[in-house]
């Protein structure tokens, strides 16, 4: 395979290979078609959600934030429409991340890198930035010409460049601005931001995200996918022979022949390939590759080459989808004269769907049935038991009551343990003897010191289990926790 060359015979530096390579700038051409329309639609949807969601209001009652989606870090709360999560419920995010990962696997086994091509923020923002560039500097050829031109820059060209970067920075700034709005009441923060009264951390985050958006979407572009992102490598391990990837159907395309020559050969009754080698698929590619070289890591499978090729095929009167979502199995089947098969439903996709379904429904079930009242009990460790002057035994507990609901509760505390035990909450004058009642404000926790005293006559054993019941006396909701009652 490889021929060995003596160093002395080497003439050009290229044989050793350069230590580093200059980047080949990509100038994607504008294109229209089905996949471009899907991409425009998804871009509008994704950016719309991202930029405007913080302004959506959701009434949670007096005193509670009315922002539909809010990550309230100082108060350790996460609000998502009707859902409110506490820090100890962070496992819902774990579940969400697992579902998201498996959804990514499912997408990949059905239609390749759908995520990369249509939904990834890197793709979406790069697409927006390309659109701006195209609008100001013109399409592919114009941009290439302007970049290559060695003439001294005229005012017109300078103003073009300034305008482009200004709009880029504006979009980047808005991107960073929208980000911080998820962490504070959006209308208030906007007011503070424009009057320069927002907390410094807000400006810092806007600055960071403005910079990353501007650099990654404006300058790094396909380099992020090629050199920074692990997903192109991971997806290669996840894909299988049935996955539908953006594929050049070489069974139909080869041998590549010019339009004129193809017409001549067809007239003679010879079979020729449909590919006319127009390079439109390469021209529109945002990563600057040739899809006809086969599946490759750089391909984000955005489908724009399909649109480009379809346009050409329609123009020359040949069937469309010379490039399309397909796989090698079908190419070989067509070469053998068999009909292609598309197996969307197969063990792999079913397994992924089942995993998503199971985890998703488990999460929804636990979320729907979770208790909005909870209690934790911790026995005093030192001293574990106290003997009182009349010989009765007392144990002290730290009780933490959690009221996750949006209203104040009146909670009654009962203990099921030593016979005839009495309960007392330090600092609370109990109206009902032996059944302390405590008010817990909405959306908060209360830490109480609870004393359980067993009379001397009941003569408790060394250690007996005691079950604490807390009951919302208004609504009847209840929770309980178990600990031990210890005698000295």
């Amino acid at each position, binding site marked *: 395979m490889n021929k*060995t060359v003596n160093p002395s015979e080497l003439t050009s530096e290229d044989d050793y290979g350069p230590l580093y*390579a200059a*980047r080949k700038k990509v100038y994607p051409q504008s294109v229209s078609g089905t996949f471009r329309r899907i991409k425009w639609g998804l871009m509008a949807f994704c950016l719309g959600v991202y930029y405007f969601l913080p302004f959506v209001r959701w009434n949670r009652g007096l005193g509670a934030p009315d922002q539909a989606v809010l990550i309230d870090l100082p108060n350790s709360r996460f609000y998502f429409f009707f859902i409110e999560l506490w820090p100890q419920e962070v496992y819902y995010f774990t579940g969400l991340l697992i579902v998201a990962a498996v959804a990514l696997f499912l997408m990949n086994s059905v239609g390749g890198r759908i995520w990369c091509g249509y939904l990834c923020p890197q793709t979406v923002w790069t697409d927006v930035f390309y659109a701006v560039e195209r609008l100001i500097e013109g399409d592919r050829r114009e941009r290439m010409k302007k970049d290559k031109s060695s003439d001294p820059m005229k005012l017109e060209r300078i103003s073009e460049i300034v305008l482009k970067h200004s709009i880029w920075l504006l979009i980047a700034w808005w991107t960073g601005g929208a980000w911080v709005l998820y962490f504070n009441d959006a209308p208030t923060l906007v007011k503070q931001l424009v009057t320069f009264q927002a907390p410094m951390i807000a400006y810092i985050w806007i600055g960071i995200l403005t910079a990353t958006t501007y650099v990654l979407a404006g300058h790094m572009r396909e380099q992020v996918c090629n050199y920074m992102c692990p997903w192109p490598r991971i997806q290669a391990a996840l894909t299988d022979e049935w996955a539908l990837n953006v594929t050049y159907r070489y069974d139909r395309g080869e041998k590549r022949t010019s339009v004129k020559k193809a017409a001549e050969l067809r007239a003679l009754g010879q079979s020729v390939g449909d590919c006319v080698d127009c390079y439109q698929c390469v021209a529109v590619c945002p990563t600057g590759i040739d899809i006809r070289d086969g599946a490759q890591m750089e391909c984000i499978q955005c489908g724009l080459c399909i649109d480009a090729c379809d346009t050409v095929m329609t123009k020359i009167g040949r069937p469309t989808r010379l490039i399309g979502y397909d796989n090698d199995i079908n190419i070989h089947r067509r070469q053998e004269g068999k009909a292609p098969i598309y197996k969307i439903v197969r063990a792999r996709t079913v397994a992924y769907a089942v995993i998503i379904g199971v985890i998703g429904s488990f999460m929804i079930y636990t979320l729907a049935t979770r208790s909005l009242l909870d209690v934790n009990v911790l026995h005093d460790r030192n001293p574990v038991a106290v003997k009182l002057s009349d010989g009765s035994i007392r144990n002290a507990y730290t009780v933490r009551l959690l009221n996750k609901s949006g209203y104040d509760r009146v909670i009654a505390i009962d203990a099921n343990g030593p016979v005839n035990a009495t309960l007392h909450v330090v600092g609370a004058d109990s109206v009902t003897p032996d059944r302390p009642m405590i008010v817990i404000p909405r959306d908060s926790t209360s830490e109480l010191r609870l004393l359980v005293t067993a009379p001397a006559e009941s003569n408790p054993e060394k250690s007996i289990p005691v079950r604490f019941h807390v009951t919302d006396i208004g609504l009847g909701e209840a929770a309980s926790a178990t600990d031990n009652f210890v005698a000295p």
Partner: protein
Amino acid sequence: MTDHQSDIDSVSGRSTTGHEWDGIKELNTPLPRWWVITFYLTIVWAIGYWIVYPAWPLISSNTRGVLGYSSRADVAVELANLDKIRGDKMVALGAASLADIEKDPALLALARAKGKTVFGDNCAPCHGSGAAGAKGYPNLNDDDWLWGGTLDQIMQTIQFGARSGHAKAHEGQMLAFGKDGVLKPDEIVTVANYVRSLSGLPTRNGYDAAKGEKIFAENCVACHGEGGKGNQEMGAPNLTDKIWLYGSDEATLIETISQGRAGVMPAWEGRLDPATIKAMAVYVHSLGGGK
């Protein structure tokens, strides 16, 4: 590199690194230029770090950096901030009455937290970390109080102490009836058994209850009261309950009556500021025995 034989991969037409694994050779793929530039920039950044921040160890110290940054100074600033925050809250605590502190959940939580810390630093050596006490050092969790268990009484005891030498300290002590020759040894044994009987403890065979009662009435009632119920004015313990500071067995009682007892509780006024003493009182009261 001296022995370098450049390989050209016949498929891609590109050079390889010459490294071979099971017949597969690695293509010599150059790094992107921006990557290499970024790499060198990180090195420059690191050098900047050396200059700006403490970096190089010297024989007995290290380079300080032009910013003069030190993590210890950071800690000092944070501690000062903490003191300031606490200071504001402690002012509120100092202004509130003891009863009001117990009624206000926020103040109660603050007093308990502050009290627990200060207790650990100052009181735990005698009373134990959980205030469970030890022989001669009262358990502060129970409901038996030598000098009274209300918030005010606890605060007073903490402020001035008992037999501490402070002008306002609690005074009064258990006399040494044997050592000072007030009672004879056999009388001491008798009265010790009488005291045991007050709280229902068994007594020695052949003990004369009437004689014991007589000795008790003549010598002990003045402080411990009629029937041995104790007197908090003098710090005389209740002898009828189940709690014994030094022990309830006959030998211990004989020792107590013969040698006397005069445990000392230091005065904390002047050592702790008034707000802290308040927090302490509330903390001790909230342990469960407070009246």
